[in-house]
């Protein structure tokens, strides 16, 4: 019987069997950041252990950093201590750190691929749930907790059990205005926030093949939002072309061998998945979340659903609570709802292509009066490129704040927060209660939809905008 892509990568990383059904898997890349690593380093020290493979460990500062000032002090005293702890731990253990002052610093899931650290066939872990992003390259990539971070630091391995496999096929071609963000929101809407629990999801089909690496990263990034352990896309020429020449990509003398290996990374025709889901990509419309978890999503031209429209009592109850929290009523059109804040950024949508799509919608227009709008590029590289392409000027001229790279308002660990009761059009990944600030009301959208909301001061169905203003598919 054939094997799935996940099974191929998993099996090639088994170091040994621990007991029963638990294997010890080798980890090719361990990415760390300031928030989930300090306790791991303390634990390591306490037990008298060393970092086994500092050369496979890479660090950045992203979660609690200021996006206004490049300084450890800028986000408060406890944040400063955390940043200093990471710098000290990296120095002590010989780990490469892209600190706040490094030109390539940025969100861990933006810089890993950018630097070529992320490659097909790898096992990649990080103390952050959105590590699933790296699956876009055909790697098994997943988020871990701090105890596991300590385990990987000590052994460069992690105990794992084989996950179930889920195939998500997106057929057909996407309409103009429909982006990878809309595709993953539509998938989560269909499968639910727990639909992927216990599974590794592989995305395939014509719509996925047509996506750029940035788009694939957006898709895999949010596979955790349906509970999947990881999301995967088989590598192809698009993947190889993206990687070639990246600083940590295989050098010339290994390139051909690496590509030959990567070309073996696909699910065999006769591989059997535990579950298969198929979605017609041509039917997906621009999406927007209306509730307080990412499955509570609709196409932007649909009315807000009534709780009683859900047959499942749990979903009906969740809808009722969500409408109360969000200050919405069943039947409303979100295109009638005003926004207070617009956030374009996060590990989901802060890459160059996202900023291009947003800037294309903005053009020479201005941010609506009374709307606070931020663009937070995902990394130093993205920021420089956006400035070189003139995108930064488009945003600044329109009245957007143009910030330094970091996680920012996605989770509001720094001072970028949404106030209680305020409504935010956000390109991030979670619309949980209080996620962007206590009492904040988050609507998840694509960069083009967020930009359109900033200009109009309310949500907009971008598929109804004129073509010249439209974002690229």
């Amino acid at each position, binding site marked *: 019987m054939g094997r799935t892509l996940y099974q191929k990568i998993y099996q090639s990383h088994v170091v040994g069997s621990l007991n029963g059904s638990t294997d010890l898997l080798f980890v090719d890349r361990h990415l760390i950041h300031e928030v989930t690593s300090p*306790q791991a380093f303390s634990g390591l020290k306490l037990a008298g252990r060393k970092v086994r493979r500092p050369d496979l460990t890479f660090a950045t500062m992203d979660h609690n950093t200021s996006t206004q000032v490049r300084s450890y002090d800028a986000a408060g005293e406890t944040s400063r201590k955390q940043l200093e702890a990471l710098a000290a731990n990296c120095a002590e253990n010989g780990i490469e750190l892209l600190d706040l002052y490094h030109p390539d610093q940025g969100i861990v899931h933006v810089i890993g691929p950018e630097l070529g650290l992320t490659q097909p066939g790898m096992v990649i872990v990080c103390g952050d749930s959105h590590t699933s992003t790296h699956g876009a390259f055909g790697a098994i990539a997943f988020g871990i*907790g701090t105890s596991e971070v300590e385990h990987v630091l000590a052994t460069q391995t992690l105990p794992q059990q084989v996950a179930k496999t889920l195939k998500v096929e997106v057929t057909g071609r996407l309409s103009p205005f429909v982006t990878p963000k809309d595709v993953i929101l539509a998938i989560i809407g269909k499968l639910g926030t727990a639909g992927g629990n216990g599974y590794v999801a592989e995305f395939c089909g014509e719509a996925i093949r047509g996506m750029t690496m940035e788009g694939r990263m957006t898709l895999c990034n949010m596979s955790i939002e349906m509970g999947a352990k990881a999301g995967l896309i088989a590598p192809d020429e698009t993947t190889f072309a993206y990687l070639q020449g990246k600083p940590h990509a295989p050098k010339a003398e290994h390139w051909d061998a690496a590509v030959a290996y990567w070309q073996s990374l696909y699910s065999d025709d006769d591989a059997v998945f535990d579950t298969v889901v198929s979605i017609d990509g041509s039917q997906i419309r621009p999406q927007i979340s209306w509730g307080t978890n990412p499955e509570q999503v609709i196409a932007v031209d649909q009315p807000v659903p009534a709780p009683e429209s859900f047959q499942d009592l749990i979903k009906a109850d*969740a809808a009722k609570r969500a409408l109360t929290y969000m200050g919405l009523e069943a039947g409303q059109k979100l295109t009638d709802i005003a926004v207070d804040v617009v956030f374009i950024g996060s590990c989901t949508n802060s890459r160059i292509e996202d900023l291009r799509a947003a800037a294309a919608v903005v053009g020479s227009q201005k941010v609506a009066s009374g709307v606070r709008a931020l663009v937070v590029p995902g990394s130093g590289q993205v920021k420089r490129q956006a400035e070189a392409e003139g995108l930064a000027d488009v945003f600044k001229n329109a009245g957007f704040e143009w910030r330094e790279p970091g996680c920012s308002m996605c989770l509001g660990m720094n001072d970028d927060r949404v106030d209680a009761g305020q409504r935010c059009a956000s390109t991030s990944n979670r619309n*949980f209660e209080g996620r962007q600030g206590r*009492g904040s009301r988050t609507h998840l959208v694509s960069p083009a939809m967020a930009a359109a909301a900033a200009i109009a001061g309310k949500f907009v169905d971008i598929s109804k905008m004129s073509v010249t203003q439209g974002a690229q598919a």
Partner: protein
Amino acid sequence: MSQIFAKGLVCPLDKNNVDTDQIIPKQFLTSVSRDGFAEALFFDWRYQADGSANPEFILNEPQYQGASILLTRTNFGCGSSREHAPWAIQQYGFNVVIAESFADIFFNNSVNNGMLLISLSASNIEFLFNRCKQGPQQWQIDLANQEILLGNNAAVGFAMDQDVKQRLLSGLDFIGASETLSAQIDQYEKQRRQATPWLG
């Protein structure tokens, strides 16, 4: 052989999809310590905007003070990988969480801290919630026999991964357990360097 893993008062938290941002909000994540998170647990639900206790939140109700078993519904712990979530739950005093289902990362993080997470069918969860409506419940968890002892000879059995069960019963240091395979890790690294030299 019966082995009581935990016993105590049950707090029924009647919510689905409790995410890690609710379990412990962002502002508590800047600590470099593993301790001090008990007060942060369910912060936005537990405290009102002015800092006073929210009398309507179940953890603040007098009859649930001292609870050590948390009963909840589906997909508990979804969201981020923050281990601060199980730390906060455990430091508050809960060492057992019973739910219909858990998010994967949260489950692993909890086990790595020696907590027992029990998954039950929707009908059994409903049965336990109904029981809680009859008055404060004191339950015992028999891990060896995989049973929740409800008192008066009533019990609900539960399934669990046997590797996880062994770890909880033996209290093994999981890094130490993996280190017993260090010769195999050496061997794997050697072979990896030869087969895929570009990986480092």
